[in-house]
Structures are given as structure tokens and as C-alpha cells.
């Protein structure tokens, strides 16, 4: 299960979480885009809970998300697989998905 981000239907600017109006052109028309990879920019290990590793990922131009890195060491600059499925196993970056998006169209990126 990939991560869904949002693109303005008018100017193409990416966004996450789901916007209401485009910050660049003001349009309210968005399409979704499925993202399955991101680049690790920074990480931190939180002591509580369970020494989890959190990361900032760049998943599209100007679109950064906060993720939990699972099952492995990840270095800044590394490209990682991204999922919004909380139950997926493996060496992935988990980004919780939006609920109740009304954007229907979808494109692959």
C-alpha cells in the first residue's frame, strides 16, 4: 500500500496532507498521486516508545512527510520504500494516510 499525496490539477504543485486550496495558484482541484519511495533527509531515535526511529522524507518536489522507519538502519540520503499500511512488514517507511479524502482521480508517480 503506497502513500497517497496530492497534486494541484491546475499548476501541479504537490502537497501533503490533503490541501483545500492550492498554495501556489488557489485552485481547489486536486488529483492524487501514489508514492512508493522517498529520500531520507533526517532521522531521530526516540527513547520512548521502544527506541523508534522517525524520519523526515522527501517524497516529491517540495513535499516532505514524517515517517517511522522500520526494520533496519537508514542513512540520510538513502531512498526507502514508503507505505501507508500500518501492518506491512519489512524495511519500510510508514506514513499514516489521510482519512476520508474526497479526491477521486489517481495517477502514478
Amino acid at each position: 500500500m503506497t502513500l497517497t499525496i496530492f497534486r494541484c490539477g491546475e499548476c501541479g504543485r504537490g502537497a501533503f496532507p490533503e490541501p483545500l486550496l492550492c498554495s501556489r495558484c488557489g485552485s481547489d482541484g486536486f488529483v492524487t498521486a501514489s508514492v512508493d519511495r522517498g529520500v531520507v533527509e533526517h532521522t531521530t531515535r526516540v527513547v520512548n516508545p521502544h527506541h523508534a526511529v522517525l524520519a523526515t522524507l522527501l517524497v516529491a518536489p517540495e513535499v516532505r512527510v514524517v515517517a517511522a522507519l522500520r526494520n533496519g538502519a537508514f542513512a540520510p540520503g538513502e531512498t526507502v520504500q514508503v507505505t501507508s499500511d500500518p501492518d506491512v512488514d519489512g524495511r519500510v517507511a510508514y506514513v499514516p494516510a489521510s482519512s476520508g479524502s474526497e479526491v477521486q482521480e489517481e495517477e502514478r508517480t
Partner: protein
Amino acid sequence: MAAASIIAASETSYTRHPSPSETTHRVLARAVRDAITQSGLDHRQIDGFGVCSFTLEPDHAIDLAWRMGLKVRWLMQDTNGGASAGNLLQHAVHAIEAGAASAIVLVAGDRMDAAAFEKLVTRYNRATEEHLSPLPLTGPNALFAMLTTRQMEERGLEPADYGRIAVAQRSWAGLNPGAVYRQPLSLEEYFAAPMVADPLRRYDCVPSVTGANAVVVVADDRATGMPRARVLGVTSSFNRDDQGGNGLVTGVAESADAAWQSTGVAPSDIDVLSVYDDYPAMVVAQLNDLGVVHASDTSRFIRERVATRDYALNTSGGQLSAGQAGSAGGMHGLVEVVRQLRREAGDRQAAKARIGAVTGYGMVLYRYGSCGNVTVLEAAA
């Protein structure tokens, strides 16, 4: 010519562990009562009221006005946490300029125990609920840990630079009977403290407390002869970059440009400064944003001016040592600068305290704070 002045500034006692009978409403009311008493005004002379609190629900500003017997013609509720004091003050000054009110009480605070804090940080906004709370993190520590790493990389800082800020603020707190942590802190103890989210250690993270702060703002021409903090300007910035940047430049930068231009005050004129200090990295960011020190010179400034307490920065101990009373975080700094300008700061009184500045910063929408403001004040009597 300034239109408004702050003639009273109060802070309730701050506590890490509120009694079971303590409520947000009561702690806000104590701050309001103390501020009105200090102002010398009669309760019935207050004709404007503004509040910010994270834990007021289901009540609103009007409920508090009613329960405190305030009959007003200007009423405001702000929701912007660490930026609320500047925001409330900006609107209050405008109200006084417009004749909508002449004596306004502003208050911010919360009963912030462990349960209230957890509820606040897990349901802070919709983005937090959906995209952060399902992750293995509680509150913003991990976000500011990554921001601190970015700042170290970009500005050539080291963990000791942040430690020196925490240690210096603890030294100031030792001179403030109202701070919750007053015992001296050494750099060795700072580094020996448990890691929270690398590179943040315990003393990098603001302690949550219960408490409230309040100020009384009046038309300047009715405050003649009173020791007061004249409001030279309040400027704000909201959502400067859609959370798409690195968070190292805050809304304080734009606010500062506007503040120096509109007031004619320069960063070098500041005698006493409170910057919003939820983490030492944000102290650094705002010192740079204000133009107090250039980014490339930050480490030297911390060593030579901040660590030595030569520069009157966060003289209450800041939130890092005095405590963060929920949404009173921004007003804590305002109250401290007003006390300094009124020369009421006791053992920590700055020798020269003519021009004061206060920043507000807050509302982590997803990755970092989105609101920033700058207040410029001048001592008058």
C-alpha cells in the same frame, strides 16, 4: 506615538503537579485578578477581555467573562498557543486605537497535567491526529530533534551550543523565585541527562506546568506617570511556507523586518529580550530571525553573550526552566519583559532596561511551528 501601554503583568505560581481541585478556569481567574489589582484599576473599569487556553472547553471567552464578572465591549479568544500573547496584544492595541475599548485584560494559561498534555499533543490538529499520532511518538520532541539536526548542519552548531543556552537559562531561573527549576545546572549535567530524541536531551525539552499569565493594556494617555511598557509595535506572520521548508526560519523573521521598520528600533537597541524557547534550537532560530546575531556568528554569540548572561535573554529562566504553562508559553516572555521594563525583576533585573522585545512562536501544524510574532516595548513612566 504609541497608543497603548501595558500597566500590569502577572504570573500565577507555576507547578508541575497541580492539585486535584485546580482547574484551568481558576488559574486563569487568579492571573486576571492579580493583574487587575496590580493595575490599580477597578474591576468595573475593565472594558475588554481576551483569552487563550487549550483546555477551556466546552467554555469560551464569554463564559470566562461571565464567571469573572467582567462586563466588556471588546472580547476575543485566540487559539494560537505560543503565538497567542502577541496576537492578543496586537488586536488589543488596535481595539484601543479604534476606541473599541480602553482597558483590556489579556490572559493565557492552562491546567496542564499529564492527561491534559497527552490529549493536547495527540489531538493538536487534524494533521496531527491523522498523520503523527499513529506514529510511535508523543508530542513534538521528535520533530524538533530533526529540526535541531538540520540547524546544526546548516549553521555549524554543536550540541554544546544548545547546552550552553539551557545552562544559562537555568542560571537566570536561579534568580527567579517563580521558576519551577532553579537549582544550578552544569554543562556536564546537561550532557549526562537522558536522551529523549537524539540529539535532544532532557534539558532541551520544555517542562509542562500548570499556570497562567495576564497583562492589562490601556490607552497610553491614561497611563501617564505610571511605570509601564509602552507598546511600540506588534507584528505577526502566519503560515509563511506551508510546512514545506526546513523550519529553521520562522515567522519571526518577517515579523521582525516589519517591526524594525515600523518602530524605528534596531535589533542592537534591545536591552531585554524574551524569545519563545520550547527548545534551544528555537532560541537560536529566533535570535537569527530577529537579526540579533547573524547565523554564522551564532556559536560565538552563545558562548560570549548568552552563556555569560551578558545579554539579557530569557531572564526569567525562560520556559526551559520556569516552565511552559500550556498556552501561556508566549505570555510568560511578555510578562518577564514588562517586569524588566518596570524594574520589578528583583535579583535578575537588567541594569539597562529601556527597550524590550518579545517573540511568539507556535502552532506546529505538521513539521514545525507556523506562527511567529514580535512585540517591541519601551519603558515609560
